[in-house]
């Protein structure tokens, strides 16, 4: 019964997003495509932070690894979108694995700082190799790199469908992971690492798996962002892109499957609205962070789950 309800809810979300492209004006359709890609990133972040309790400040590194992993191949070697996406996925996962092997030796505050430092080193490395990576100015991907099985992703229709396809896959994978044995062990690690260790689970292995999964999602999102919107740049590797997924997850609800999407949707439009009023729109990002952490640490869906819908995954 519960399982049916959960599947119905998630499939309904996907169906609603499919319908949205015919109902909404073009401006919002493009925004929604962007939001869905960012939501994939946030879902990846959620796997590490929301489910496993790994508060990383360096996810921009995995996003950028995917973005450049796909983008550089398509810019310099003329790869098309599909192999570029796969390369980005792999780059994100491998980067997360490499970082995890080192960073997971630490916990808590040290883990946050180590991930922050790795991400900063990654950002500076992109700047250092400016001639190849385009540095601050970035690179505009060629048309060949933005064609998927013959469809050009610079057109609104195919772009939205690809974004939706990636988002749906990620959402259902995330749901699968959350309901699987692995997902429950991840939550156990978050809740009580010592007890889980005594039950025979190796914290290091579980966390590393969670981080690599998280890196795969982030890398895919990064590559998709590059391919769909035709631009890769060092600005996507800055600390701000480590903070944004955290903000989405905190707002939507850490440890919920739909939370990252909801957070990305609301935050995107809040920033969009605020940047129409003032150039200092990041002020609202800061204010949202402080407000959330003070008054609603569980986020929107976390609170709803606690109060009313206990079955929400």
């Amino acid at each position: 019964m519960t399982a049916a309800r959960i599947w119905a809810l998630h499939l309904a979300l996907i169906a609603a997003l499919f319908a949205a492209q015919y109902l909404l004006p073009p401006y919002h359709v493009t925004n929604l495509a962007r939001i869905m890609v960012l939501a994939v990133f946030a879902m990846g972040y959620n796997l590490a932070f929301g489910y496993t309790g790994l508060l990383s400040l360096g996810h921009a590194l995995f996003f950028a690894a995917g973005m450049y992993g796909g983008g550089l191949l398509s810019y310099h070697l003329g790869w098309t979108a599909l192999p570029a996406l796969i390369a980005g996925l792999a780059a994100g996962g491998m980067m997360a694995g490499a970082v995890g092997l080192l960073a997971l030796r630490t916990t808590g505050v040290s883990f946050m700082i180590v991930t922050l430092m790795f991400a900063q080193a990654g950002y500076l490395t992109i700047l250092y190799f400016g001639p190849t990576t385009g540095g601050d100015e970035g690179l505009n991907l060629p048309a060949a790199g933005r064609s998927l099985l013959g469809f050009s992703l610079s057109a609104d229709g195919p772009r939205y469908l690809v974004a939706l396809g990636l988002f749906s896959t990620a959402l259902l994978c995330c749901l699968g992971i959350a309901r699987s044995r692995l997902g429950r062990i991840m939550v156990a690690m978050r809740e009580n690492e010592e007890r889980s260790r005594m039950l025979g689970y190796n914290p290091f292995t579980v966390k590393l798996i969670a981080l690599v999964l998280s890196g795969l999602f982030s890398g895919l999102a990064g590559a998709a962002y590059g391919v769909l919107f035709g631009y890769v740049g060092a600005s996507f590797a800055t600390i701000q892109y480590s903070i944004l997924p955290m903000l989405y997850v905190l707002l939507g609800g850490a440890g919920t499957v739909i939370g990252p999407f909801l957070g990305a949707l609301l935050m995107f439009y809040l920033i969009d609205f605020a940047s129409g009023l003032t150039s200092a729109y990041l002020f609202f990002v800061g204010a949202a962070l402080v407000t959330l952490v003070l008054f609603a640490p569980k986020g929107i869906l976390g609170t709803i789950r606690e109060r009313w819908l206990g079955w929400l995954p």
Partner: protein
Amino acid sequence: MSFGPFLLLALMEGMVTAAVLALSAAGLSLVFGVMRVVNVAHGEFYMLGAVIAWFVTTMIPGSPAVAFVAALVIAPLLVGALAAAADGLILKRLNYDPEATIVATIGLLYMIQQAVLSLYGPNANPVAAPFEWRIQLPWFGYSGYKLFVVAAAATLLLAVWALMTRTKAGLVMRATQIDRTTARAFGINVDRVYMGTFALGAGLAALAAVLIVPIQQAHYLMGGDPLLLSFIVVIIGGLGSLRGTLLAALIIGLSDGVISMFFSPTLAKILATLLVAMVLVFRPQGLFGARA
């Protein structure tokens, strides 16, 4: 110039960086040591110090020296007051939970930075040095003010050290650092100690910025680099240890000066950040001394 004088110049520039860095890192280290709070907004307190110094020096006419001294007093006080308010309104309510405070101070970082962008604008503005004086070395002339910065920072650090080891306030802070429950049982008002420590840490960052602002310019994004470098220094020196912080500031400042002069500043930063990550992974108590 041949290699020798070049190296000397690099080392002198490195000394200035090290002096300012030691001051702002001491603030970060103090806050972490006593309160166990990683203050990500530390760089913004630094930036605020510089911006307030610019406001003060433009408001006070006449001799730049008077205006500068006024800035040296007013900036840390204002920034300290803001930090105390942030502590009371935000950090205290979070019960100083390490992860929640990091998220909250990230929020604070954006709010301060963007508020300054609105009120002060995106321009970089210079502040006049309190005096013009150049020392003529055989190979190059050097700004006397930069040497003053090194001396002033050293004096201030000495004062912080004396405060921590020779006064009642320092004793109370150290007691709170070692065991806050026992300190509370002995009648120490831990909330007030925390508020004072947070204000003092922010004030030190502001002081460092007032000292440096005649050399650099006041800009709303100037807090990023000092934050990163202070983190690096505090971690390499051992979280919460003042002596280690000083030693690490010297090492990072001097090597930053030398590497930036002979190689690329970006490369210097990449190496420094990776070094920090490795230190935290393999030697979490820092390179020097035991865990504080």
